[in-house]
């Protein structure tokens, strides 16, 4: 991996951290609100399905996770296990894609179907 890509990965991780900070806050406030008002799963789904705004919000949340987590894991694996090189890069890329697909599938199930 060339140096410019490494720098852009670092920048992407910082930017995704900023997005995650906001997303986690909104998510927690929403969850606490939903639990405090005693909403059932069916009532929650009734409110979420077809809601484009919330779908977009959680799609963004998933995207930020899919960017942030693999880049951080790449550093952790490199420093703690000494794993470096192309194999590590492909592994975390695959993990990022998997996280995005799993997350967006959940968003689809809760907000669209």
């Amino acid at each position, binding site marked *: *991996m060339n*140096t*410019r890509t*490494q*720098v*852009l990965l*670092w*920048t992407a991780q910082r930017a995704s951290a900023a997005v995650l900070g906001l997303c986690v806050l909104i998510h927690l406030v929403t969850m606490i609100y939903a639990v405090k008002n005693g909403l059932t799963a069916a009532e929650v789904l009734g409110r979420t399905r077809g809601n484009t705004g919330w779908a977009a919000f959680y799609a963004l949340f998933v995207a930020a996770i899919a960017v942030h987590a693999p880049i951080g894991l790449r*550093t952790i694996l*490199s*420093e*703690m296990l000494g794993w470096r090189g192309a194999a590590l890069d492909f592994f975390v890329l695959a993990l990022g894609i998997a996280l995005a697909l799993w997350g967006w599938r959940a968003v689809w199930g809760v907000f669209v179907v």
Partner: protein
Amino acid sequence: MASLKEQVDTAIRSYLSTLQVRVWRGRESGEFRTYEVPRLESQTVLDVVTYIQRSLDPTLSYRFACRVGVCGSCAMTVNGKARWTCRTHVARVAEGDQIEIAPLANLPVIKDLVADMSRFFDKWAQAKGQFHGTRTRAGDFARVLPESRQRQAVDAAIECIGCGVCYSSCDVVAWNPDYLGPAALNRAWTLVNDVRDTARVARLAAVAGDAGCHACHTHMSCTERCPKNLVPTASIAGLKRAVAAAALKGEL
């Protein structure tokens, strides 16, 4: 004024008060050997090591030069922390009457308390720590305004004496042997802000990425331990911003 008898008593008490000093002997493999050293007033750790070498065991190897905190040669690990030994008073670091002295961590050991600094200084070169200007000896002096933003940004950083305490204290160096380390990056930061220097982009490329400034986790051990009270962490953060901006502009 104390009588002669009181002065003699004080001198005897001082002499009888001894330090138990565990000193690393050997190379990468070796052992700590314990020496008894008289405890004196205003005694530094370097004084202790010097006493051992001159009075107890002339085969002990260690490195020092100026003895006054200028040259950066005498850094060692004292009770588990990297310190400049010439300006470290025994009274500040001794745990009871115990002191443990070892070579700097994160560097190969040549012998006893002498660490091999080659890798440390090679990384200064890798970080393009050399100045590149355009003027010759025939030209006029360059004028660097003391109040300018760039000069202010490196006001502390230029005082680095290259002792290696930060490098020895850095977790990232221990985890990633390719990491350039705080001192080399701090040096690069001083040159990135030097208005006379012409190698800015090449230097930013040299200090970028997995082995460069972006590997720093901001643990701040370098800042905590720097004997000159510099803040290499801030220099590295400055490099991160400068390099990211250059990467986004496509300059790298």
